[in-house]
């Protein structure tokens, strides 16, 4: 068992968005989160990644296992592609960037500045970052935004390889990645909070 989430409630801006979220993700499994815009997919992922504290509920996950990738890729425009990816590799204590670079066909771009990349190329670099982290548990928020068809297929290949190697992933996405039996789909609409409570005191304090 890689991750177990029990009865989790998450809130944003003092309003509870999701209640009673419960799921397990085993090693080698992917969990696809679905739901309409504004339901709380991003908030849930940020809570799971530890960026914000859940209101109630429990997340059981080995601390050094997870890596998070949000809407923004964290690419420095004045650093080259190689410098960007090498930085993240060093932060996570790894050194092999070649596999990540070639997986997303970034070979021709390694010496180009981050600011000169197109939106899709930036996203590919952001996804390549996941490979150099060496983490087993990936939390991805809309990873295929601005990718072309070939890159989406490449991304699905990367996810399959990651799952086959015993990793797992939680992916919030609206498209079908074609992961087959390795992926469960979880529709978050069933967890939509029925009683939107306001936490005025907490907001006032912050």
């Amino acid at each position, binding site marked *: 068992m890689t991750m177990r989430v029990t009865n989790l409630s998450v809130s944003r801006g003092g309003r509870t968005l999701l209640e009673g979220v419960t799921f397990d993700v085993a090693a080698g499994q992917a969990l696809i989160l679905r739901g309409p815009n504004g339901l709380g997919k991003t908030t849930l992922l*940020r809570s799971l*990644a*530890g*960026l*914000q*504290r859940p209101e109630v509920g429990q997340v059981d996950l080995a601390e*050094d296992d*997870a*890596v*998070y*990738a*949000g*809407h*923004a*890729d*964290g*690419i*420095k*425009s*004045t*650093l080259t592609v190689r*410098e960007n990816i090498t*930085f*993240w590799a*060093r*932060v*996570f*204590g790894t050194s092999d960037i070649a596999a990540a670079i070639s997986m997303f066909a970034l070979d021709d771009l390694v010496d180009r500045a981050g600011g000169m990349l197109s939106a899709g190329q930036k996203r590919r670099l952001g996804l390549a*970052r996941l490979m150099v982290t060496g983490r087993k548990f990936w939390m991805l928020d809309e990873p295929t935004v601005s990718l072309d068809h070939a890159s989406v297929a490449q991304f699905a290949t990367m996810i399959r390889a990651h799952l086959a190697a015993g990793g797992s992933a939680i992916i919030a996405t609206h498209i079908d990645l074609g992961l087959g039996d390795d992926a469960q789909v979880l529709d978050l609409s069933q967890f939509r909070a029925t009683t939107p409570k306001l936490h005025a005191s907490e907001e006032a304090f*912050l």
Partner: protein
Amino acid sequence: MIALLIRDLRLAMRAGGGFGLSLAFFLIVVVLVPFGVGPEMGLLSRIAPGILWVGALLACLLSLDRIFALDFEDGSLDLLATSPLPAEGIVTIKSLAHWLTTGLPLVLMAPVLGVLLGLPERGYYWIIVSLAVGTPALSVIGTFGAALTVGIKRGGLLLSLLVLPLYVPTLIYGAELARRGTQGMDTSTPLFMLAGITCAVTAMLPFASAAVLRINLR
């Protein structure tokens, strides 16, 4: 952590990194003061330590909002916060990088600009000592202010207002140290107070900065 330091230094040196901004501001302030005050050397050399300190402090203030704002905008800060680096380590490295790219150049530039203000000979040594001891405190306190205001659009004004009162003790003892040293008086009290402030904020504030950073990233 070393990787983060190297990255921040590299970013500061590259185009648009804002490395020269503080130095240019410091230069402008010090060059303009003699025009404003008049060419009387006696007066200028008397106020020179204070002018250098105020100029250095304002130059430091000018560069504070870059500490976290750029990393917040492009999403790096979220990714750093979920990386193996502890938040306390991140803010400490950010302070150190800020000091190396702003504080240290100011220390080195101050004696050169002292010439423009007719700083007495004895003063050069003490302006370097006082700024070298005092500017780390400015960077650490500034990092705390930057962590408080991260995520606020155009938070520079709020940041300045929050940080300015916290800078006052450093300024008082720093300028006093430089003034006493320049006039050949006993310097031990302001020197120990200034060093004490720097040591205390360096030891304690990173924990506060890390705590507010976590809250602001929610």
